[in-house]
């Protein structure tokens, strides 16, 4: 595995010397003294957790929406899942926030750029402060990694809100920079392991919806985050064979690793399988974001039968095979003879 050092070594390993070394040393020692024992992310796996009964899901009149810009749900004590408000953007993606002893990983953002429109940075900071209070840590001691599942703007639009945040690294907006961020040299097969400080996240390529996409597996919650290539809605498959191969890679992974939930970036379908059309800002009866491994397997089995472009419903998701530009599911309701 050819990876950058920051992926495998804890941030604390970097030694820095200053002219006031003695003073700094005392301060460090004091900090170390109060620092509690590291959280064990390797025992009692998978870590239990839960999804909310209902996410915020927009409103009939957008300007009358009183929900917060971001719904923050703590899946468990060390895992938050963020969801953008549909009245802020119809894309309303889900964004996991994984905490480790040394680092915090934010995956995906939402489809609004500026802080004055929605303060994602503030929300993330508040989550980090909250976690640090509960775990008796100094927020400044944690490094924030801002990454995204794939190279679409609804997943990286808010990136620059983090430009002036200390102790923060974020992914660039090209395929090369994305791969470089994870130290990958053999996309998409190569699996890299990101160490958040006792908590490992496995990352590999998952092209198909777009070329530049990753799958993320959190070894602590054992959630498999599949981005936009597989989610509860219309999986827009731009490139069939790479997508099919990525699905195979996910299935192979599930064959060899325990997976509690498969989670995509969006929900565009109701509990009873109705399609919420592209762009809708109110989804009152939406299906849960989390899916089972069986649903993933069923979709893959269905995908094996697909030979032509078109829209196919697997029972869980719509597979929109190379149809993005020309077709959708809705019909004009006022047709008559």
């Amino acid at each position, binding site marked *: 595995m050819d990876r950058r050092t920051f992926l495998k070594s804890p941030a604390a390993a970097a030694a820095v010397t200053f002219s006031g070394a003695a003073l700094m040393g005392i301060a460090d020692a004091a900090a170390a003294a109060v620092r509690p024992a590291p959280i064990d992310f390797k025992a009692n796996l998978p870590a239990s957790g839960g999804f909310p009964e209902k996410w915020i899901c927009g409103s009939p009149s*957008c*300007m009358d929406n009183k929900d917060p810009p971001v719904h923050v749900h703590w899946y468990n004590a060390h895992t938050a899942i963020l969801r953008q408000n549909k009245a802020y953007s119809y894309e309303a993606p889900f964004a996991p926030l994984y905490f480790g002893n040394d680092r915090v990983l934010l995956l995906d953002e939402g489809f609004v750029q500026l802080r004055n*429109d929605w303060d994602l940075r503030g929300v993330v900071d508040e989550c980090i402060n909250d976690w640090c209070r509960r775990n008796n840590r100094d927020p400044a001691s944690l490094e924030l990694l801002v990454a995204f599942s794939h190279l679409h703007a609804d997943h990286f639009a808010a990136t620059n809100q983090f430009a002036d945040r200390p102790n923060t690294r974020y992914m660039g907006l090209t395929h090369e920079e994305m791969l470089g961020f994870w130290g990958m040299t053999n996309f998409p097969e190569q699996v890299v392991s990101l160490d958040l400080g006792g908590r490992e996240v496995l990352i590999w390529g998952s092209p198909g919806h777009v070329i530049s996409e990753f799958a993320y597996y959190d070894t602590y919650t054992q959630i498999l985050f599949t981005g936009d290539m597989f989610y509860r809605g219309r999986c827009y498959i731009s490139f069939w064979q790479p997508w099919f191969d990525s699905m195979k890679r996910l299935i192979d992974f599930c064959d060899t690793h325990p997976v509690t939930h498969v989670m995509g970036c969006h929900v565009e379908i109701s509990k009873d399988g109705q399609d919420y059309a592209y762009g809708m800002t109110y989804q009152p009866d939406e299906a849960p974001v989390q899916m089972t491994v069986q649903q993933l397997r069923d979709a893959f089995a269905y995908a094996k039968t697909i030979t032509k472009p078109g829209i196919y419903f697997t029972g869980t998701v719509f597979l929109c095979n190379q149809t993005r530009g020309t*077709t959708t599911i809705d019909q004009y309701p006022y047709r008559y003879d």
Partner: protein
Amino acid sequence: MPTRATYSPVLSGNSMSVTGSAYPNGNPDLPYNLPGVRNTDSVVALHRSTPVIHDYGCDGPAPGRFVMRWIYGSNVAARNRDPRIQVVQYNEDTFVLRQNVCVHWEAPFTYLLFGNAGALLIDAGATADARHYPLRETVDAIITRWSQARGRRKVPLTVALTSGEDVAQNQGLVQLAGRADTVIVPRPLEVMKRFYGLGATWPSGRGKIDLGDRVIAVIPTPGTHKDGVSFYDPYCDFLFTGDLIFPGKINIGNDRDFVASLERIKAFIVDHPVKSILGGHIEMMFVPGRYYPRFATYKPYERLLEIDPALIDELLEYARAVQGKDTMLIRRDFVLLNGVSPDQRTPDWPSDLPNITPPRPF
């Protein structure tokens, strides 16, 4: 921009408005005293003791202008603070109401016309909840002010829809139910036909709604909706066409009816002066052939509402071209969707239009 000999744009001003008014500072070649002055009653009525009888007679269209820009939503719909209904007075007796696009993405236009014997509300908006879309309150307030200015105690209101079945135009009706001195044109197709006296002739024939010296013609125009009608106002010379003709994605409900209705409109235009066709929505951008997708809540590059009546020829030509085909066809000022999804896209770009990709705002 036609100019006359004595007018020099260099000396007397160039138009910077999108509406392209040729004489931004007035046309010096026209007489100072134009006959349209008699269609104004705001001030001369001030000290009358009896209700004003407004003069709805005029040579050509009654004076009036759309100068304001329509509200167009905002990037973050939840933070929009524009009025829920934008009210624009076209002239003293003609109002246009637009629903805020952040209340409902259809952002329909609703028209309120006054005559000497009553008022007509054309269409009723896309939202039933008065807290989100205070149609009744807004209409009541305009009628109150108008009736005070005209010295009228009662202004009977007729509410008519360009399509009774269209949920983007009929939702506000519930707010007007039970309103005093109000007649709501019944919605079921058969009852509506009889109301307009078109029971035997539909879709031929014409109905009318007499507002008192301002007689609105009712033209059956099914095609996008089974129960579609258009309204013609001989005072402003406006044709209100709802979903049949508007600058946007025109979803055809029945292509035979659609072509027949356009032919009917074309024949109507031949012997009635039409200044503008006003539809129920705007979906096109001012970039040729480009449109906003469904559910968009931020439309900063919207095309103008007004459609030149000459566009009917192009519309009819391409309506005939798509007849019998499940297809989508893009033109500069409209898009036709026949038998396909409202979200249909097409790789076919019309060769006579520049293909400009407008910037996408975040």
